[in-house]
């Protein structure tokens, strides 16, 4: 398989492959030995690739009609929605595609957290993933500014003002970001440029992400190292391709439902009001996928510390491979970690919920507790748990549920916990 040198059959193929080994690459990708016990949570990598390509293709077509000018942006979006052939369809796919992209990336990240996919030897894959996630947030934020509605304008104002929290140079940086003394046309044109650029940076990083993945190979629900190729693995094509395809189609049904029947439900009504620098909407909220971080920002009463807390909440993930001291990867064999994992999931969902609510009274209190717990999980619980937790016996291979002679309850439990 992939370890063997690939030799093309045809003479031309050999000639070409000696000069540019595309055929070797294709052969590596199709034969790539993949653990055969991967469950559906592993299909989100493929789904995310689909999301990225969808966003790039629909984005390119929208850019053919969009006008990045403060006086014309809103109108050009309406032009797309009304007059351009299938413009409404392309725009709704692009707008909802951002939400679907984040939905998929959150599932992908939480899958990694559950099965310990970030642990050695996969730290680089994980860190590249965090960088992709950060770039996604930047792209999504700038994309949201482009329609130049009220939420675009005030979202841009609020987020760029975060930089003013930096001591001494903060104000200067904000003016530099804006290209003026407020969010205005120069801001819009540079955001459009960067919004156009970032997806291609993400694309490049995705190649690195997959490259880095193909060095150690996939983690798997049992979380053990496997021999490749062996009876524990299947070739990527057709086994994983068809499975990813099936999951992708399920995902597309949900996607299509949003695009065709609830295209504006994930957006905010105020963004259909043209930007007005004189009036702030009553209730400013970011898109749903940024709400947990927004809640963290607001839960800290100090401007600078709030920004630091929000950034740390993301950057702390990059340190995760070293914060988690456990030698066992999969939560299946870590009964205590599994409990804490689900508490973290609930914590993030709660943060998202309070992020959408006004920052006052009970909501603010909940946000503060949830923020504190978020950091507690990564900084205290994970390092301690890895040292103290009594883990379950781990099987030696996927195929043979043998663990030094003892019956493997974990394997049976494994299937259960995945469909929980």
């Amino acid at each position, binding site marked *: 398989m992939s370890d063997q040198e690939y030799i093309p059959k045809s003479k031309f193929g050999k000639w070409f492959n000696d000069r540019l080994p595309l055929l070797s690459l294709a052969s590596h990708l199709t034969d790539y030995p993949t653990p055969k016990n991967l469950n559906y949570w592993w299909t989100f990598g493929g789904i995310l690739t689909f999301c990225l390509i969808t966003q790039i*293709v*629909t984005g390119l*077509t929208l850019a*053919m*009609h969009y006008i990045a000018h403060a006086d014309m942006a809103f109108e050009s979006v309406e*032009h797309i929605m*009304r*007059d*351009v*052939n*299938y*413009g409404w*369809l*392309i725009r709704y796919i692009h707008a909802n595609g951002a939400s679907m992209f984040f939905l998929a990336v959150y599932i992908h990240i939480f899958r990694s957290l559950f099965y310990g996919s970030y642990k050695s030897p996969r730290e680089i894959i994980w860190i590249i993933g965090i960088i992709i996630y950060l770039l996604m947030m930047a792209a999504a934020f700038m994309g949201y500014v482009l329609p130049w509605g009220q939420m675009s304008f005030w979202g841009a104002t609020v987020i760029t003002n975060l930089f003013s929290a930096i001591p001494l140079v903060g104000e200067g940086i904000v003016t530099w970001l804006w290209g003026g003394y407020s969010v205005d046309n120069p801001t819009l044109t540079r955001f459009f440029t960067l919004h156009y650029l970032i997806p291609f940076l993400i694309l490049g990083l995705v190649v690195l992400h997959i490259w880095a993945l193909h060095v150690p190979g996939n983690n798997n629900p049992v979380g053990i190292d496997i021999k490749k190729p062996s009876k524990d693995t299947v070739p990527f094509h057709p086994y994983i391709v068809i499975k990813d395809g099936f999951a992708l189609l399920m995902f597309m049904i949900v996607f299509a439902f949003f695009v065709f029947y609830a295209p504006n439900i994930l957006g905010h009504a105020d963004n259909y009001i043209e930007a007005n620098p004189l009036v702030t909407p009553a209730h400013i909220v970011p898109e749903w996928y940024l709400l947990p971080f927004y809640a963290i920002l607001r839960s800290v009463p100090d401007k600078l510390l709030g920004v630091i807390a929000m950034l740390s909440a993301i950057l702390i993930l990059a340190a995760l491979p070293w914060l988690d001291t456990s030698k066992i990867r999969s939560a299946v064999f870590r009964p205590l970690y599994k409990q804490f994992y689900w508490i973290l999931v609930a914590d993030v969902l709660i943060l998202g919920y309070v992020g959408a609510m006004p920052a006052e009274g009970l909501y603010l209190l909940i946000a503060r507790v949830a923020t504190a717990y978020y950091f507690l999980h990564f900084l205290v619980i994970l390092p301690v748990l890895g040292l103290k937790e009594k883990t379950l016996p781990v099987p030696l291979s996927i195929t043979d549920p043998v663990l030094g002679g003892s019956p493997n309850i974990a394997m049976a439990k494994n299937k259960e916990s995945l469909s929980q």
Partner: protein
Amino acid sequence: MSEKKTNRRDFLFTATYAVGAVGVGATVWPMIDQMNPDASVKALASTEVDVSSLTPGKTITVLWRGKPVFIRRRTEEEIAEAKSVKMEELKDPEKDEDRAKNPEWLVMLGVCTHLGCVPLNDKGDYNGWFCPCHGSHYDISGRIRKGPAPTNMTVPKYEFVNANTIKIG
């Protein structure tokens, strides 16, 4: 594996591929069609021109669908000259009567049929138009007489709404 089973599996795969291909096609079409003229562009397909101030022997150029349209009010001599040309002398034979319904008025797209430049008025060897890009000569009926252009300048669909107004498109 039995023969029958193989066939059924092949059918299943073929059906899956076929249905999948239909979907890919249906998805690609909107991405292509979005580049076609949109509804607002199509709505601007016609334009009305007031020609009351045009004196015989003069040409005005108006914009229609982003292209120049020449409207020439021809003199008696010009009409006579246009009608006198023999068909065998023409590269793209076309009677003047077919090009100008009302012989006094010649309405045509001011676009050289060679590579799309705008020919110059009252220039060239045939008292008509001359394209400076690659040297195509047109006569007073807008027919190609000399040079690389393959056909006569195009006459668009137009009509007189009233004595002073021409509607193009």
